[in-house]
């Protein structure tokens, strides 16, 4: 790999004081990446792009929005009707949130399928889960800002979850509200935090990427990079591959923004908040599984604990799964239960979208029990009793065998042209 010395005098002057050119080269251009990454590995950079989209549209929206109970709803409509391209900003931001969650959930399940959480990538995984939690917080607080009926009642119901805390619950909720109900102080602090959280996410993304680049990417075979022959430089190979993903993602986002901008929202949120009338409350689609878990437990505190545990348990995945083999490709049993688990999450989402009555109660409870059983019972047991299939010697051998020809790759040519 070449270490480029900048020819430009100014660049040399900078490089001597801050090695930004060699750093960029090492991390983004020559950065050695497993040569066998498939399209599921696009979703990390897609998530990064969505974060930038949300930051950009969010900062611009904040220039036109007014965080006050008597003006928030109207200022949102002002953005929609009066602000130049305001409708585009708001629809991009609202649907961008959903797109962000689509990408992040695929990214998360990619990690679960290929064992990306295993040593030495545990911290990388933990940072990812923290990012997910911050995203959930940001999404929730952002949803409150238009101050429609669903905004207000989502804020009321979710903040009331804290009242389940024994002894100090009510004090805690009053503190969080800054009053005795969700009101102006609540709106202003949610606005402030909704602006802050994305920057915390940026900081965590930095740690996430630092850990990633220190130990390098996992790959579909789940075996470590053993020699330079196993890798190709990030640029142009994966920059190009990521571009394909960007194109597909923005195509999907554009369909929603331009043709179905309100499909994922609730009509009732176009009615201004009314503290005296509770509408039928349904969370956004990305919280439906958690909502189903909340309702599956017939006890207030128990439901809240279960819902939080459903996210927190992800932290423990590296230690619940003791199998030495990472990729589900070589784990015949884990692979099947992975798909069962994914189906279980979809069932939870479906239950969460329906009223808690009739058979939905039973299905919701069974699916919740299975969700936790997957982590606490099934995964540890599989790790213990499963016989994994034989792993290939190395990434490049596996790739070349699959490619049909036994010819050794012209390693020099695979480097940056």
């Amino acid at each position, binding site marked *: 790999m070449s270490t480029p010395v900048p020819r430009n005098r100014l660049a040399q002057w900078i490089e001597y004081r801050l090695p930004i050119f060699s750093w960029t080269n090492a991390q983004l251009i020559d950065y050695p990446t497993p040569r066998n990454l498939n399209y599921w590995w696009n979703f990390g950079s897609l998530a990064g792009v969505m974060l930038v989209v949300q930051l950009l549209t969010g900062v611009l929206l904040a220039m036109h929005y007014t965080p006050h109970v008597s003006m928030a709803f109207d200022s949102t409509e002002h953005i929609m009707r009066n602000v130049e391209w305001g409708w585009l900003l708001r629809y991009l931001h609202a649907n961008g949130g959903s797109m962000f969650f689509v990408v992040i959930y695929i990214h998360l399940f990619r990690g679960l399928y290929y064992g990306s959480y295993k040593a030495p990538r545990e911290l990388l995984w933990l940072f990812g889960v923290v990012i997910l939690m911050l995203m959930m917080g940001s999404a929730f607080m952002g949803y409150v800002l238009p101050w429609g009926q669903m905004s207000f009642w989502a804020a009321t*119901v979710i903040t009331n979850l804290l009242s389940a805390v024994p002894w100090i619950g009510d004090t805690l909720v009053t503190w969080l509200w*800054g*009053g005795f*109900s969700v*009101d102006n102080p609540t709106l202003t602090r949610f606005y402030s935090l909704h602006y802050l959280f994305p920057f915390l996410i940026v900081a965590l993304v930095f740690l996430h990427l630092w850990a990633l680049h220190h130990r390098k990417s996992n790959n579909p075979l789940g075996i470590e990079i053993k020699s330079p022959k196993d890798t190709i430089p990030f640029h142009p190979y994966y920059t190009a591959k990521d571009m394909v993903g960007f194109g597909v993602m923005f195509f999907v986002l554009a369909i929603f923004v331009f043709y179905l901008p309100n499909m994922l929202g609730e009509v009732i949120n176009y009615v201004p908040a009314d503290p005296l009338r509770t509408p039928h409350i349904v969370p956004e689609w990305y919280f439906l599984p958690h909502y189903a878990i909340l309702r599956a437990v017939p006890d*207030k505190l128990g439901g809240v604990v279960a819902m939080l545990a459903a996210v927190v348990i992800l932290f423990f995945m590296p230690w619940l799964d003791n199998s030495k083999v990472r990729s589900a490709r070589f784990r015949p049993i884990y692979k099947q239960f992975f798909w069962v688990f994914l189906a279980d999450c979809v069932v939870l989402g479906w239950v969460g979208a329906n009223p808690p009555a009739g058979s939905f109660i039973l299905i919701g409870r069974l699916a919740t029990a299975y969700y936790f059983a997957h982590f606490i019972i099934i995964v540890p047991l599989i790790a213990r009793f499963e016989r994994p299939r034989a792993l290939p010697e190395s990434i490049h051998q596996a790739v070349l065998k699959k490619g049909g020809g036994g010819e050794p790759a012209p390693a020099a040519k695979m480097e940056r042209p």
Partner: protein
Amino acid sequence: MAETAPEAEQTSPAEGETRRDFLVLAAGAMGAVAVVGIAWPLIETMNPSADVLALASAEVDLSPIEVGQSITVMWRGKPVFVRQRTPAEIEQAATVDLADLPHPETDEERVQRAEWLIMVGVCTHLGCIPLGQKLGDPRGDFDGWFCPCHGSHYDTSGRIRVGPAPRNLDIPEYQFLNDTLVRIG
């Protein structure tokens, strides 16, 4: 101090404690006090401000409320249900076996005058407004109030009977100023 210092340095290391250990501990403790001292007011800023606290009472004129009619008034940003109960409802509330209640309270504990039921109209589960104030609202299986969010049923005394809510509907502090005027808060 200057005279005692060398002495301490000579004796202390034998005991495993030095002046430096003490200084580290003392400085650490002062640092912790400073952090708490700064954090406390910063956290307090998020509590209800003086103007929010000042709006903490509301007066209600009871004269227009007929028997069997409910009104909703705002108090501290929350709805308060004021209902003039029918004799049948009072009877129903008073004759419940306390053993059947998830949160046992007698009807007398919950009202100052049997015909006037005054309570905070916020479901104790997750804060929705229960239905049952208007004619035609579903009133649940116990003829009181029904929360549509997660299906809590309240009886004619506002007590939780079935559903996820952990407590009966809260009773605010109130007093009758005269027969037709009540002050909440």
